[in-house]
């Protein structure tokens, strides 16, 4: 019930507005790129390597003569896919682990808590390395490693919150009044924890975009067949000192998108948590969710 009107509430916040607009632009670009890009992003043109921005290559060309604007546009597709995929997987993993860790009898709860701590020690990067070692580098590696890695992070952060809500008065009252556990879950528990997870979803997408950049740089992420911002960054960045301008575009695209997703998360938080200004103990909201170097 608190979710109706959410988009409009988001829009009213400047952070929400920025986030929605940029995210919208990215999704739109991704869709457009399916039918049109100035050049085929795969086509190399050796005689026009390292072109400066101008005409017809508006953002210039890379080391093999591919048009950078087309690559950035096509890369948006990858970004959207990775962000959504990783976002969903991490939220699912987070919900699952947090639920088991908060709602089951003490023994399993403690076990899951420890399990979470152990899994957190496995950085996203390592998970990515292992997955890609078995199945080869690909976007799925990014999706699953961020999904699992960040999902565990989400679980760690939301588990106490979930537990707290599960033991709050109205939920307990729900049980007392004869609702089954499942009904109680749906009617009382979920609506109150959903905002927490929605917020984490947004941040997990931001993490995924950064992770894609880092993992592609290391060779575990996108391969040449899928244009991606991360791979483009990795390619061009090697020549930063001789062709500094080219690397600006994918870097900017990544930064803006991540910024938008982060701000969207912030706005979601503000828009869905009525007790923000209140007596809340510093909660799961703002614990920094990733570490530089780990994912990007």
């Amino acid at each position: 019930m608190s979710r109706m009107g959410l988009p409009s509430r988001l829009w009213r916040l400047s952070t929400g507005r920025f986030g929605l607009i940029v995210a919208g632009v990215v999704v739109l670009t991704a869709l457009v790129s399916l039918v049109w890009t100035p050049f085929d992003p795969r086509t190399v043109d050796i005689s026009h390597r390292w072109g400066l921005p101008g005409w017809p290559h508006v953002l210039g060309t890379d080391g093999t003569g591919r048009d950078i604007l087309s690559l950035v546009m096509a890369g948006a597709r990858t970004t959207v896919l990775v962000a959504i995929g990783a976002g969903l997987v991490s939220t699912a993993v987070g919900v699952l682990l947090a639920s088991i860790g908060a709602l089951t009898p003490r023994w399993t709860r403690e076990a899951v808590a420890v399990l979470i701590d152990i899994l957190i020690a496995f950085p996203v990067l390592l998970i990515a390395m292992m997955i890609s070692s078995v199945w080869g580098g690909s976007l799925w590696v990014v999706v699953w490693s961020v999904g699992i890695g960040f999902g565990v992070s989400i679980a760690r952060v939301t588990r106490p919150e979930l537990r707290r809500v599960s033991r709050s008065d109205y939920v307990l009252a729900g049980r007392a009044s004869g609702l089954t556990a499942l009904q109680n879950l749906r009617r009382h528990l979920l609506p109150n924890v959903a905002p927490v997870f929605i917020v984490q979803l947004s941040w997990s997408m931001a993490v995924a975009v950064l992770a894609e950049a880092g993992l592609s740089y290391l060779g575990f992420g996108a391969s040449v067949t899928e244009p991606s911002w991360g791979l483009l960054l990795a390619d061009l960045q090697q020549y930063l000192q001789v062709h500094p301008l080219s690397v600006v575009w994918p870097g900017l695209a990544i930064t803006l998108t991540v910024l938008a997703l982060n701000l969207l998360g912030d706005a979601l938080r503000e828009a869905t948590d009525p007790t923000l200004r209140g007596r809340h103990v510093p909660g799961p909201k703002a614990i920094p969710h990733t570490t530089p170097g780990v994912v990007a």
Partner: protein
Amino acid sequence: MHSFSSRPALLRRSAVAGLGIAALALAGCTGSPQPGPTGEPDPDATLRLGLVLEPDNLDIRHTSGAALEQILIDNVYEGLVTRTEENEIVPSLASEYEVSEDGLTYTFTLNEGVTFHGGGELTASDVVETYNQVRSDETLIGHDQLAHVVAVDAPDDRTVVLTLDQPDQNLLFALTGRAGLVFDEGDETDLKTAANGTGPFTLADWSQGDGITFTRNDEYWGEAAGVAAVEVSYIPDFTAGVNAALDGSLDVLTAVQADLAPQLDGQNGFTLTRGATTDKATLAFNNQAAPLDDVRVREALRLAIDHEALVEAVGAATTQYGPIPALDPGYEDLSDVAPFDPERAKELLAEAGQEDLELELTIPSFYGTTVSTFLVSAFNDIGVELKVDPVEFPTWLQDVYTNKDYQLSFVLHVEPRDFGNFANPDYYFGYDNAEVQELYAEATSTVDPDESAELLAQAARIVSEDHAADWLYTGETITAVGPGVAGFPVHSINSRIDLAAVTLATE
């Protein structure tokens, strides 16, 4: 026998006819432009050298990899013979050698006064024991190369005689590599982390991730090394390497990437040299797996590639259209076999019933993306969708090399004189042509080197006409030589760096 280069030296160079480069390279006349040292060479100087791929350990007898040969052979370890940077065979521990007319007997006369770093003196019995070990122990690298040696004898302290069961054209060259290195009889040194050789340098220190340090061997039997010590740093990131050179941390930087070279050219006193190599960038086709078992498909794929353009994109490379590079015997310019012709490629695919083909390229992830990007585009133009699968090297070894579970694969084969792979039906190429195998066997057992080269050239042409693989280019190597450095080799840097003659003027 193969070693694979870490990262290819991807260098920029405008396309030049392969033969022209070959002539230049062999004549060595582009080699060694000495940057003017500003003063006299300093005998106490330490040379700081930047390389790319670090060896996992230093065990030159058991662990494969070009990184080991590159730095250890001729500097720390020596064999009876060695090869120059242009791959010519010259004497080393043996002051002279003689091959009998029937090619079955090799007689080596050892130099006097050769000592091992650990203290022992070199005698013929050391050679005998070392070579017998290689012959009998199949875990020692080089074992296969001594297959035709039936006896190793020492008629006296200074003479070693190898007896063969049939002439082996490759034997002498093999002895310039790992198979020929001589170790002290009964030596117990742990080769993984220490060394006991006869070379102009001793191994002072090695720490994984930190690099290797050599110090001059003052008891060296030959001419003493030009510098007192060499500090080798391994810098896998190309830009980091360039920066290290620019901020004065290195005296020499190898494997400079072509697109980055302008940053060093003439800067801070650095000069660039370009050298030839036998690094063959090989796009392997799995000849045993459909649809690549159809020669029309293989030819189509080759015709789709504009090799001149690729060479320009890669930077320091020359075109290559057959399995034998310019520095090896049997080289011939085979560009007529697979000219750039995308229209004809499409025709061939249609003939073979393979329009809308989807293929997968397995490529070790350390190679960068230039080649894959180029291939995706080139194949896209003839209607072939190429999926690229970057894998870690151990995975490549398992999937492609051992299990032959692949369609296309790209790897840099850096070993010289490895044409034999195409005469080996069990090699991961899966190429099985009886005529080639016969020609190769004949070439190997011919005593006259020129005749042998002629036979190899014939075999190579057949392999190319069969389109058993595509040879995307042969790498060139760019080295940035700092001010005051003289005598640094120019060619074949990926497989051999002879540091003995290098000097450094510090003022």
